[in-house]
């Protein structure tokens, strides 16, 4: 079978400056930060959804609650990944 690199497998790097190289792998810290970013933005959007749509009767719906819970979970997951530093994902 053909291989892209038959002799040696390049060592992965988690340095952001190498993001376009075929050696780059996101670090767990990067993914943690991404989870926090998505979680916070998602939380803000879901919490303010009723204000945006003008549908403020009845409070949060079941899907909205699940979504908010998921966003909080995503933030917590991201926080636990931050201490892993440059560990490749």
């Amino acid at each position, binding site marked *: *079978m*053909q*291989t*892209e*690199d038959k002799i040696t*497998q390049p060592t*992965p790097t988690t340095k952001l400056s190498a*993001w*376009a*190289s*075929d*050696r*780059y*792998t*996101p670090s*767990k810290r990067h*993914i943690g930060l991404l989870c926090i970013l998505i979680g916070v933005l998602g939380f803000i959007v879901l919490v303010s959804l009723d204000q945006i749509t003008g549908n403020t009767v009845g409070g949060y719906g*079941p*899907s909205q609650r699940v979504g908010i819970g998921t966003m909080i979970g995503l933030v917590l997951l991201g926080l*636990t*990944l931050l*201490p*892993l*530093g440059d*560990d*490749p*994902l």
Partner: protein
Amino acid sequence: MKIVHRGLMLGASIILLFALLVFVVYTVDLMRFPYDYDQGEGFELVDTMYFSEGRWPYQNTDAFPFYSSNYPPLFHVMLVPFAWFFGPAYWYGRLAGFVATLIAAATIGYAVYRDGSQKRWIAALAGLAFISSNFVYHIGPLFRQHITMVAFETVAIVLLAWAFPQRNRVGIGLALLLLVAAGYTKQLAAITALAALLWIFLRNPRRGLVWGAAFVTVGLAIFGWMNVSTHGEWWRQAIQANVNAFDALQAFYLARLWWQLHGFLIVPALLLVLYELYFERISLYSVWFVIAAVLGGIGSGTWGAGDSYFTSAIAAMCILSGVFFSRWLSSDWKPNPTVYQRFFAPLLRPAQSALPTAGLIIVPLLFAGYGVATFKLPTNAPLLRPIADLLRIEPNVDQQLYDSASHNVLGYAQIGHILTPEDRAAGDYIAALVANADGPVLSEEAGFSYAAGREVITNPTQLLNLWRAGLWDGTELIGMIENHEFALIILRAQFYPEPALVAIATHYEHSETVTMNGFNYQILRPRTTDSSGG
């Protein structure tokens, strides 16, 4: 301790091998039955016959014979040689499902052996665990494309998990082509494709983008060709009509049942996911498991979906739990030196020597517990009846079946039982009514029409999907009903669009009810005096 371990492993093996035996008995029984067992099988056969004649089954459903498929073509195309040799028959579609189930199970076993410290026995039990699942048992031996999709997915994932880190281009390309094949077997494979693309992107964004672009290009090229060839009906029938209503309660109850039946292996699978997340690199199996469980679970709540939507997650669960057990028994843990490793290592040090020994007891007990949790047994099968008597197992659901899941969960398929001679006689009777009918017959299942040598008219659930999506014009069909152009109408679940059902109720009257396979088939004939008043 080794002797105790082997004894327990033997016990777990007997339980899981028995599940395989039940699965084989069930499959052989179904292969001998020439009518629909699970509603919709007949229309998969119709699709196969269309392809065997070189025709697309994606057609305009507003004109006679009002038929269209709502599934991708690959499963049916694979069966075309059988259709050429044997004509319309159910057995080869059910055989294909059975073989696909075995391929998926064997691939799971191979993955556990390759990626989990080469433990042959554990690998074999992981493969058997897949077959033992109640959800797999349901869908495996049916003339449905679902398990073939899962087999394609499993082979693709296991190949990609090896080929991508190895940078093996042939392997990566083949794995992605298998994912395309899975997608053109059933649309639900999009979930597994998403997991695979996400994993290769996270592994290396550049290579992920290149391979992802190639994958999407091939998939879209086939899509475009099919859409042009079918004058847009592929898009309307297989995509637009498949956006169905979501029932959160159904999704919740099915997810809970999935947990109740498979918890013995879900927990070890989750432990490996967490271990990989915090101590090693994330494997493709972990990404597949999480995404397939979450999105498949949500998808199981849509109209027409059910427990089968968890089967991809079950395949991933079997691989992950098998790898976890193998590594546990081999003490094959190489955690990265992270802050968590530094924290947990001293805590686990006192138990370090006891853990592998505990694994010798716990691992086979978990497999055995899983086998008991997923236990099902048709008590009326000749080969199984003595075992049921010996174990004093009584049916706990209808149709002489013991099913650990019971049949009280919304969306759980109420099948798995063995057919009786009375079921066969009832099917033959309905087929004879169709054969002797003085005109075309509108049947909610296709098997009777094939048995009677009559043309198959309509695919009711597809018309219902289209009607709900506002894409159905029933003028011609309703006109035929109003004009009594159908000599007979056969209803089972009444999955026609409401306007068609109203027309049927108005212009046809109940003649008799025939019970087959636990379902009541209503035979309707034209009213002698029209109740419409006109």
